[in-house]
């Protein structure tokens, strides 16, 4: 009997397959389906502070635009009892989800202000979430802002949130740090119970017909796994906190690679957006089949087995790897 359990954020999960933040978790029905299909935990879609503010401003604008200007139409909308602006509906969904499923429910925040991160983290805790994941994006466009200052923003933020909540805290970051390993260590020390590697930025595209910059979200593909495997493999054993690998996980092979690189859990979004929530059942059976064939007893047994520390050639994760890739191309004659 293969032991599929894993430890993540101080919780024993039934397997290392976690549904990561996506629009699918906006509906309770989907969260139920995720549990039924075999996910061991679900990270809720992100609560975007900026979005909440925009919606508040939009509502305010709509309620005030043209109001108290003309005697016949002093306003244009009925005064309804309550509006669910702000995080109310999100928190309500967390409440419902924690009641509806047995697997852990992890709230996710994308804040815009220092106060906002802490406020929403506390709200998510109060709503009954089992953990909080901070989904941190920061595009450092200000040329006067140094890398050190950017890093300090992350560290302060994690420390501040950690101070204010008692449930576990995961921190989801991008790979674009000059000193990723050092940064991971800082976040670990600042109080992160897990690092989630890595989030993805929406990369804008240029539309040549309309001459507009257009937002573009392309679902992740398996090749995105590489950068994540590398950093999980490098960081494995260097941190106190857990590591989750997210991005590019589509198949059972991807999951095995992630665990072997050192991830405690793997997270999946694009594959289930593309193939449906039921896709996870294929992944699970693929995992078990592979482990049975190879006679692995547990995920713990394989975890980190191909980390930088564990492989025969640790440089493979460093520059040599880069050279090797380049040299694999044959020159065109």
């Amino acid at each position, binding site marked *: 009997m293969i032991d599929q359990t894993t430890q993540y954020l101080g919780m024993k999960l039934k397997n290392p397959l976690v549904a990561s933040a996506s629009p699918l978790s906006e509906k309770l029905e989907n969260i139920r389906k995720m549990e039924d299909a075999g996910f061991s935990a679900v990270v809720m879609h992100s609560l975007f502070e900026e979005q*909440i*503010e925009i*919606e*508040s*401003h*939009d*509502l*305010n*604008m*709509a*309620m*005030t*635009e*043209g*109001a*108290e*200007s*003309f*005697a*016949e*139409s*002093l*306003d*244009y*909308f*009925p*005064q*309804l*009892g*309550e*509006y*669910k*602006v*702000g995080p109310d*509906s999100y928190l309500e969904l967390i409440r419902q989800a924690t009641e509806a499923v047995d697997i852990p429910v992890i709230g996710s925040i994308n804040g815009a202000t220092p106060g906002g991160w802490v406020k929403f983290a506390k709200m998510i805790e109060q709503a009954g979430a089992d953990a909080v994941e901070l989904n941190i994006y920061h595009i450092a466009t200000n040329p006067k802002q140094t890398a050190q200052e950017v890093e300090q923003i992350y560290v302060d933020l994690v420390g501040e949130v950690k101070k204010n909540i008692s449930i576990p805290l995961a921190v989801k970051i991008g790979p674009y740090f000059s000193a990723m390993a050092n940064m991971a260590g800082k976040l670990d020390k600042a109080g992160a119970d897990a690092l989630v590697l890595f989030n993805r930025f929406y990369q804008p595209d240029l539309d040549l017909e309309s*001459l*507009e910059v257009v937002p573009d979200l392309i679902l992740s593909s398996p090749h995105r796994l590489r950068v994540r495997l590398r950093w999980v493999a490098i960081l494995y054993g260097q941190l106190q906190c857990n590591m989750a690998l997210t991005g590019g996980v589509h198949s059972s092979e991807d999951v095995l690679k992630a665990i072997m690189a050192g991830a405690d859990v793997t997270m999946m979004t694009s594959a289930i957006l593309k193939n449906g929530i039921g896709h996870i059942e294929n992944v699970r059976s693929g995992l078990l089949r592979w482990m049975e064939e190879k006679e692995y007893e547990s995920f713990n047994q394989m975890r980190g087995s191909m980390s930088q520390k564990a492989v025969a050639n640790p440089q493979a994760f460093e520059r040599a790897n880069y050279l090797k890739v380049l040299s694999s191309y044959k020159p065109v004659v």
Partner: protein
Amino acid sequence: MRSKVTVDANEAAAFVAYRVSECISIYPITPSSPMGESSDEWSARGVKNIYGTVPLVMEMQSEAGASGTVHGMLQGGALSTTFTASQGLLLMIPNMYKIAGELTPTVFHVTARTVATHALSIFGDHSDVMACRQCGWGLIASNSVQESHDFALIASAASLETRVPFLHFFDGFRTSHEVSKIEQLNEDDMRAMIDDNLVSEHRVRALSPDAPVIRGTAQNPDVFFQAREACNSYYDKAADIVQESMEQFAKITGREYNLFDYVGAEDAENVIVLMGSGAETAHETVDALCAAGVKVGMLKVRLYRPFSMKHFVAALPKTVKRIAVLDRTKEPGAGGEPLYLDVVTACNEMLGEGALKAMPQIIAGRYGLSSKEFTPAMVKSVYDNLAQSKPKNHFTVGIEDDVTMTSLTFDPAYSTENEKVTRALFYGLGSDGTVGANKNSIKIIGEETDNFAQGYFVYDSKKAGSVTCSHLRFGPKPIRSTYLISRANFVACHQFSFLEKFNVLKCADEGATFLLNSPFGADEVWDQLPRILQEQIISKKLKFWVIDAVNVAQNAGMGGRINTVMQTCFFAISGVLPKDEAIAKIKEAIKKTYGKRGDAIVNMNYAAVDSALANLHEVKIPAAVTSTIELAPPVPAYSPEFVKNITAPMIAGEGDDMPVSKMPVDGTYPTGTTKYEKRNIAITIPVWDPDVCIQCGKCVLVCPHAAIRGNVYAPSLLSDAPETFKSTPAKWPNMKDKVFTLQVAPEDCTGCELCVQVCPAKNKSEVGRKAINMELQRPLREAEVKNWDFFLKLPRVDRTQIAHSRVKDVQLLEPLFEFSGACAGCGETPYVKLVTQLFGDRMVIGNATGCSSIYGGNLPTTPYTKNADGRGPAWNNSLFEDTAEFTLGIRLAIDKQNEYALELVQRLSGKLGDELVAAVRNADQNTEAGIAEQRERVAAIKAKLQGDDSPDARVLLDLADKLVRKSVWAIGGDGWAYDIGYGGLDHVLASGKNVNILVLDTEVYSNTGGQMSKATPRAAVAKFAAGGKQAPKKDLAMLAMSYGNVYVGRVAFGANDAHAIKTFLEAEAYSGPSLILAYAHCIAHGFSLQNGLTQQQLAVQAGHWPLIRYNPELLKEGKNPMQLDSKEPSIPFKDYAYNETRYKMLARSNPQAAELLLKEAQEDAQKRWMHYENLANMSFGDEASN
């Protein structure tokens, strides 16, 4: 325990009406709409009545429908009510007769409003109520907000006991919209006043098959008369019962009322009698006069019908010798106005019965029509008149009648303002939130201090850039001042730009405080003030404070909404509350007002409050006037005489001072006057880049205010052009030797940015810039004014030489609708402008009441205008409900006169010549060229007949212009076409006559504030549909198509401008009835109107608004008349709908309901599309046989 609340009379009356009713029927009409809105909102929220059940609220298609429904509700045994005013009340009259004839208890709550005569007015007088005095209803008048609350209950109780229905009224706006502190009745009070046994008796009288009776029989001469007299005993007892109800009410609440309440000296000889809000001013004046030793009195009429003569004379002082009866209505041709006639009758009859010892001299006066100010000075002038040996009878007061000399003179300086009352005036913009903040201030003062408080708000007649003036009073005693503040001890000007437009310190009292939002600091502001302000600041010894509120608000993230900043300063300076306490209360009010909109909004306002006081500075007043800045003249010096003499004073706010002799006698005004009112309301205006422009004309087409225009002309004309005037070679194949200019009217543009949004031409080196880009107006104003003036003088392109079907060419057609007062970014006016470009010089418009009649015809200036030949649209607004019929009447008159003129042409062929006669009679006027030729023929006829004195020639000279084809248009909104006017519209469609009907479909009653119409889509929230519209949008296009001989078009200029133009041309060309349904984005949809064009596109893409043309002409060619001109829905309905608050707010308030309704709305769109597609794919005639 009763709470003190600060509310307006609409809320105060509706609070009671809702709680003592089971069924409520509603329809919007200003100023009563808020009562229906409150009822609908309460019902949607599940607020219960005093019987513990939630009343049913039903919106109807008209006031006639609402009263019919109430009649049915009452016959069904339910306690029922409705709310209305003005023409709405007039529409209820037939049912009111029925309800009274059947002795049915109910109360209609009415905000008394002017009935339209020579003009429409939304403001208050008693002409509507007086038009109902013959219906057999009790008429009970409330004079104040408290009374509107109390009398709503007293009337309800009395109606149940008397079985006489009651019309409870209070003055529109002056009372309905006055915010005042009142003691609120609680449920126990209401239960104590309403007798359950009487309610039970009412229910027992209901129509029921379990105890069947018949009512509404037809009666014959033998018994009708007697039967009509059978109700007398009920009316005989009614007044006494009302008095008893008042006494019972006094026992419960301590507030005493009588049928007639006398105020003043016990031994007064001169007495004024009146009712309504003016009675409070008269009361205040009598108190002041008596205190000064003048023995006068006044009688408040509470119960006007039934008019109890015995109670009336009993209430008069025994010493009375002279009575002035003041009516707030006019009955031309009558021996006197209604209240006067009742008083004369009462005194005469009571004299005969001995109840009155001597007949007093009774004179009549009119006052306060259409909310005309009624002040203590006017009241005093009435007493002064009474004291004359030969007092003027049938006088007017409050105006100068220099024609029939009816008016009394009065001393405007006379004042009874109590010095213990703080009187504050605030000038602001609608968009800066001034009124909202002042309403909060009044609530704070009223509910958090022992002060009595009153707020009254005066609004603009324009919807874009509207100016507001808030009048706030508070003090230790009840406030009876139902007139505007003319001696303010606090004046705040929230917009620096007002200083150059009008005298903001006109009403500042000596020693008053002046608070100014100024971009200039305390040390530099003095030099920026106009001379007239400096003079007053010094002479009136004003204290002067400034704050850069715009800066403070912007730093707090509030943009131009400076309301909370200025509110904080007001509290800080006025000292009405200790500073810290005031700030805490302001923050509480902010939380209450904005809390539901999210923390971001609350915090933003808190930040503004917190930083306000640090930026508030007192200005040290110099000893001498130094300014040479003068107020800007209201109109330019080159304006026509009428505009200078009549329009300009109105623009300058001096309309009250204009005498009768200045007024047109029949409501006829010249068109084309908006161009003289330079409003300068845009912060930014579009600036043209000729190098990028492709001259497509889209910007000109979408401009709601005709403030951006194109022209093509000979380059030689540029020799006199101003220095900064721009031009570029014209991109027309047939006009390659000409140049093109796109010019903005800098002082008329509203800065809505629709033109920039639609511009498809982007700068190749910097794609963020287009062929037009918004830039600050102020630095550009002077140069662009010169450019605009030069542009207007350029000759226009010959209409016969361009293709009217192309967007590019349409920009060269002169708009004959310009600079209206519509909202910035309005979605309606581009259609109206387009129709005037295409047909304006031969167009007659019948306009339904609504937004389009307000921006189309509200004084002081109106936007329909004339071309260089003096031709342009002729316009009239009849009513809300009858526009199609009214316009048909115009069509029939034109058709008949055309026919008659043709007959006369034939009869006069000897004089005109056979060739001309034949040409006139056989003229093809289907093209611009054909019309131009016919005009030339008409000119020839006129020339030939000049001086001919024969009867036929004289008549033909009158009618000759009718020989030129006229374009007759009925224009209105969806409230008219789908609801109140549908019956008439349907009849006109069925008539086969050549009437063009343009429905500007905003999918709500926009003008009255966004109430649901049958055009409102499913899932949208609107007033009267607070829970989201449950039924699908009515498909008016399908209904019209069912006739087969009606041209039907559905257009959305933001989605397909060329299609819109094509549809208008086809509709007008069609010789039968045509109906164009035009999608109009609207402020009531709840999104930034900058995105209006995008939303139109999305509406079409989602299948919500399929573009169609149904042209019966095609049937003659054996083709399918139905053409589906937009593509299959390509986006979900949600992607269109959830950009708009009207849909989104339901998702926020009731997500489950929203999801269900959204799903159904999606199905509606799919079904509609499939249906249209099937119709468009059907084979017809030859197609079918092939």
